C-alpha cells in the first residue's frame, strides 16, 4: 500500500493541534513556533499532493478507501480532482500566513484585564479547522464529508467567540457581548443548515443505499439509480441549503458580517477564505454530481439569488463604516460571483468559479490581514478613525491598495482572470444575468477605492501620526500574498491547467455542454 498522502495532509495539522494544545501555558512562544512548523509541514504535504496529481489523469486520484462504519454504509474514502487539489493547496498555503498574522492576537492582555485568551488554544483551534477543512475537500464519501463539514463549526465557533480584537470602540463589555452574539449566530445558522442537510443525507442513503460519491454518481450516470423527480429535488434542496448558508448566499448571509466583524482579522480570513470555500466547493462536487437534473431545475432561481448577492453585498459594502464588515460584504458579493459561475453550467463559468475560489482566498487574505494590521495599530475598526495613513506608513498603505485592487479585480491581478471567466461563462448562456452582475464590478471599484481614499489619503489624523509601518513579521505575511496575486494575474495557466479537466468532468456529469458558438476558455 502506498503512502496515504491525502490522509497525511489532514492528520498532520490534527496532530499539530493536539501538540500545540499540550504545550504548557508558560511556553506560549514555543507553542506558536510549533503550530507554524506543523502548518508549514502541511503545506509541504499539500505541495506533494500537487506534484503527484496528474491533471489529465483519472477523475479522482491519490484515492484511499477503508472500511469504517459498515452498518451505515460509510467508508473512509478520500480522493481529489483538480478542483479539490487547488483548494487543498489554497488552504495549506493560507494557514501559515493566518498563524503568522495572528501571532500576537491571542497573547494575554496586560495585567488587570479580565479578558481571557489562551494562546495555545488559538493556534490549536486554527490547526484543527485546517485538518477538518482539508478532509472535507478530500472526502469522496458523502457521510465522511458531512461529518467534517459539521464538526469544523465547533472550533470555528470558539475562534470567533473566544478571541476578538485587542481593543474595541465600545469597551470590553459590549465587545464581549457582540462577540458571543456573532459566534452563536454563526453556529446556529450553520448548524441549522447542516441539520437540514443531515435529513437529506439520510434521504440519500435511503434512496441510494450507500454514501460513496463515485458509486452514486456512476449509478446516476448509467441510469441504474433512478430518483423520482421530486425526491431528487428535495434532496438537492437539503444539500444546497447547507452549502448556501456556508457559502453564504443571500438571504442566508447575515451571519458573515457579524462573524467577520467580531473575529480577529486572521480568523476572519479563515472564515471567508478557507471555511466558506467548502460551501461553494461542495456545490460543485455534491450538488451537481449527485443531483444533476435538480441542479438544472434550480438554476434560474439560484442565479437570481447569486446576482442579488453580488449587487446587495456590494451595495452594503459601499455603505459600511466598519472596515472588517466592509470586507465581509465584499466577500458576500464575491461569493455571489462564484455561485453564479458554478450554476451558469458552462465550462468557463465553472473554471472561473474554481479559480475565483482560489483567487478570492488570496485577495481577501491580503486585504483583510493588512486591514487587521491597521486596526491593531489604532485600536478601531471604524473607517472614520483613519486618514492619511499612506504618508505615515507607506508600505502598509501600498499593500492595502494592492489587496483592494485585487478585490475589485483589476486586470493584471489574479481575481481579474476568474471574474472575467465567470462573467463570460454566464453571459454566453444567460446574457441578462451576466449584464446585471457586471454592475457588481463597478460597485466593487466604488467600495474599495472609497475605503482606500478615506483611510489612507487626505490629511494625517493626529491619532495615526505615530503609526509604525509594517514590521518584518507582517511583511512576511503580506509580501508572498501580493507576489502570488500578481503572478497568478499574469500567468494563471498552472492553476487553470489543474482545474479545467475536473470542470469538464463535472460538466459532463450534469449532461451540459457549452452553448454554441464555443468560446475558448482563456488559458
Amino acid at each position: 500500500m502506498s503512502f496515504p498522502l491525502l490522509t497525511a495532509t489532514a492528520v498532520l495539522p490534527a496532530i499539530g493541534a493536539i501538540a500545540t494544545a499540550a504545550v504548557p501555558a508558560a511556553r506560549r512562544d514555543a507553542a506558536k513556533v510549533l503550530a507554524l512548523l506543523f502548518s508549514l509541514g502541511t503545506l509541504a504535504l499539500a505541495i506533494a499532493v500537487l506534484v503527484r496529481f496528474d491533471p489529465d489523469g483519472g477523475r479522482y486520484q491519490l484515492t484511499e478507501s477503508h472500511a469504517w462504519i459498515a452498518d451505515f454504509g460509510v467508508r473512509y474514502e478520500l480522493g481529489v480532482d483538480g478542483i479539490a487539489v487547488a483548494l487543498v493547496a489554497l488552504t495549506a498555503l493560507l494557514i501559515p500566513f493566518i498563524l503568522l498574522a495572528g501571532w500576537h492576537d491571542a497573547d494575554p492582555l496586560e495585567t488587570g484585564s479580565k479578558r481571557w485568551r489562551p494562546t495555545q488554544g488559538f493556534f490549536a483551534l486554527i490547526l484543527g479547522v485546517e485538518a477538518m477543512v482539508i478532509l472535507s475537500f478530500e472526502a469522496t464519501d458523502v457521510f465522511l464529508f458531512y461529518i467534517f463539514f459539521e464538526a469544523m463549526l465547533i472550533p470555528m465557533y470558539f475562534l470567533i467567540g473566544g478571541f476578538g480584537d485587542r481593543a474595541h470602540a465600545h469597551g470590553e463589555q459590549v465587545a464581549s457581548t457582540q462577540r458571543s452574539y456573532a459566534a452563536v449566530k454563526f453556529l446556529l445558522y450553520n448548524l441549522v443548515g447542516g441539520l437540514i442537510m443531515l435529513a437529506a443525507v439520510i434521504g440519500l442513503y435511503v434512496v441510494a443505499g450507500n454514501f460513496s460519491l463515485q458509486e452514486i454518481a456512476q449509478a446516476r450516470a448509467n441510469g441504474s439509480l433512478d430518483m423520482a423527480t421530486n425526491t431528487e429535488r428535495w434532496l438537492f434542496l437539503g444539500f444546497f441549503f447547507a452549502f448556501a448558508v456556508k457559502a453564504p448566499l443571500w438571504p442566508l448571509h447575515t451571519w458573515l458580517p457579524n462573524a467577520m466583524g467580531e473575529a480577529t482579522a486572521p480568523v476572519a480570513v479563515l472564515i471567508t477564505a478557507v471555511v466558506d470555500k467548502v460551501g461553494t466547493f461542495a456545490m460543485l462536487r455534491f450538488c451537481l454530481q449527485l443531483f444533476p437534473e435538480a441542479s438544472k431545475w434550480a438554476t434560474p432561481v439560484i442565479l437570481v439569488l447569486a446576482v442579488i448577492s453580488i449587487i446587495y453585498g456590494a451595495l452594503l459594502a459601499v455603505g459600511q463604516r466598519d472596515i472588517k464588515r466592509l470586507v465581509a460584504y465584499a466577500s458576500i458579493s464575491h461569493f455571489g460571483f462564484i455561485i453564479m459561475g458554478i450554476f451558469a453550467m458552462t465550462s468557463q463559468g465553472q473554471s472561473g468559479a474554481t479559480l475565483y475560489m482560489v483567487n478570492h482566498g488570496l485577495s481577501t487574505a491580503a486585504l483583510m490581514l493588512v486591514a487587521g494590521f491597521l486596526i491593531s495599530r489604532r485600536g478601531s475598526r471604524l473607517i472614520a478613525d483613519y486618514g492619511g495613513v499612506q504618508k505615515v506608513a507607506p508600505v502598509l498603505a501600498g499593500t492595502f491598495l494592492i489587496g483592494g485592487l485585487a478585490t475589485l479585480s483589476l486586470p493584471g491581478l489574479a481575481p481579474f482572470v476568474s471574474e472575467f471567466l465567470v462573467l463570460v461563462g454566464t453571459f454566453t448562456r444567460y446574457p441578462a444575468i451576466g449584464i446585471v452582475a457586471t454592475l457588481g464590478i463597478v460597485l466593487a471599484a466604488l467600495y474599495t477605492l472609497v475605503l482606500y481614499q478615506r483611510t489612507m489619503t487626505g490629511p494625517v489624523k493626529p491619532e495615526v501620526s505615530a503609526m509604525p509601518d509594517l514590521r518584518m513579521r507582517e511583511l512576511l505575511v503580506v509580501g508572498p500574498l501580493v507576489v502570488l496575486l500578481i503572478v497568478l494575474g499574469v500567468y494563471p495557466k498552472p492553476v487553470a491547467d489543474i482545474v479545467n479537466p475536473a470542470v469538464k468532468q463535472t460538466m459532463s456529469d450534469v449532461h451540459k455542454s457549452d452553448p454554441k458558438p464555443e468560446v475558448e476558455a482563456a488559458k
Partner: protein
Amino acid sequence: MSAVAVHSLWTTAAGPITKIDSPKIEYGQLSPTLIVVGAAIVGVLVEAFVPRKSRYYAQLFVSVVALCAAFAAVVVLAADGYGTTKAHIAAMGAVAVDGPALFLQGTILLAALVGLFTFAERKLDPQAHGNHVDSFAAQAASVPGSDSEKAAVRAGFTTTEVFPLLLFAVTGMLIFPAANDLLTLFVALEVFSLPLYLLCALARRKRLMSQEAAVKYFLLGAFASAFTLFGIALLYGYAGSVSYATISQVVDGTLTTVDPALADTMGNDALLLIGTALIVMGLLFKVGAVPFHMWTPDVYQGAPTPVTGFMAAATKVAAFGALLRILYVVLPGLRWDWRPVMWGVAIITMLGGAIVAITQTDIKRLLAYSSIAHAGFILAGVIATNPDGVSSVLFYLAAYSFVTIGAFAVVTLVRDAGGEATHLSKWAGLGRRSPLVAAVFAVFLLAFAGIPLTSGFAGKFAVFKAAAEGGAGPLVVVGVISSAIAAFFYIRVIVLMFFSEPRPEGPTVAVPSPLTMTAIGVGVAVTLVLGVAPQYFLHLAGQAGVFVR
C-alpha cells in the same frame, strides 16, 4: 358388596402418584439478575450487621463486585449465543433471554456501575465534624432542619442503604426489558420504581426539595403503575393470557386452541385497544415522553444529582427496552393502530422537550428537558418498525446513558457554599476558572446536541436512518428541526461557560475522588469512541436486534 365396590361410587382408582412438576428455572441464564438481587440482599444484611464505620466500604465492595459479576455473566451468555442462535424464553415463559434483553442488561449494568461511582463519591463536600460526607442525607427519617438531623450529621451518619437500594432498582431494570409476560413486566416495574422513589428523597442538601420531588415522583408513578396494571387486566380479558406470545397470537388471529371459558370475551377489540393504550401510557411515563413528562423536571432537579444521573440513564434504557418488546413482540399486528399515535407522541416529545428547555435557568432542569427531547428522538427509532429500528434504539440508549451519567457527574462538581450550584447564571465563566471541567462538559453538551464525532451524532443518525427507512421521513424532518432548536440551548451553556465573565462570588469546582473521575472519564471515552469508531458497537447492536417470541 366389597369395600372396593363401595368406594368406587365416589372415587376412581388413581393412577400411580406422579410428582408435581416443579417449575423449570434456567438459573444460569437468569444469573445476571440473580447476582444483583443476591447482592442487594447481602447489602441489607451488611446494613444490619456490619459496624457503621466499615459499612461504606463493605457496601461499595459488594455492589461493585455484584455489578461486575453480573456484567460478566451477561457477556458469557452473549458469547454462548443466547443473544442470537440460542435465544429463547426462560423461566416458564416469564423472561426472555435474547439479543435485545442481553444488550440492554449489559448497558444497564455498566451504567449502574458508573452511576455507583458517583453514588460513592465522598470528597466533594468538606468533611463535617471529621466525617466524610456524600450526597445523601445523614438520616433520611429525621425532619429537615430538626435537632435530630443535626445530631445525625454530628454523629457522622451516612445513608449507606443507597447501595442496596440501587441494586434492587437495577434488579427490576434488568428484568423489565426482558419480561415476557405482563405480570413479570409489572413486578419488574415496581421493583425498580420503589427504590428510585426512595433514592430521590435522600438528598443531603435542599432536603425539602428532594422530598417534594420524591413525593411527586411517587404519586405520579403510582398513577402510571395503576394505569399499566389496569391495561394488563384488560389485555388479559382480551387474550385470556398474560403471556406475550399468546397475546400476539390472538392479535394476529393465529391462536389455535381457545379456552372455551374465555371464548366470550376474547378478541374484543375495545379491550385490546384500551389495554394497549394504558400499558403504553405507563411505559411512556417511565420514558418521560410528552404528555407524560410532567414529573421529569421536578424530579431531576430535586433528586440527589448522582441519583438523577443514574435514573436518567438506566430508567430510560429499561423502559425503552420494555416498550420495544411490547410493541415489536406483542403488538406488531396492531402497528397500524399504534404507529399514528406514536408518531404524534414522538413529534410533540421532540418539539416540546426542545422548546421548553430553552427557557430553563437551572442546569438540572435543562438536562431534564433535554432528556425529554432525546426520548422523542429514540421514539423515532421505535416507530421505524424494522430491524434497524431495534438496533438503532439499542445503540442510542447505550450512547445516551454514558453521556447523561457523565454530564450529571460534572454537575456534582460545580459547587458553592450551598452545595451544588445548579443555577445557570453561576456557571458563567467556568471555562476560565476550570478549563478542563468546562471542556469535558462541553463535550457532553455537544454529544447531546448531536455534533459529529460524538456518540450523540452516531446515535441520532442511526435512529433517523432507521426511521427514514421505515417510511417515517416527515418524522426525521421534525427530528432535525428539534435538534436545531435543542442545539440552541446546549450552545447557550457553552457560551456561558466560555464567553461570559466569571462572577466574583461564583462557584468553585471541587476536586473529586478517583470514583467520580472514573465516571466522567468513562463518559468522555465512550462519547468519543462511539462517535469516531462506532462500527463495532453498531454491529453488536445490529446482531442483538432480534427479539425472541
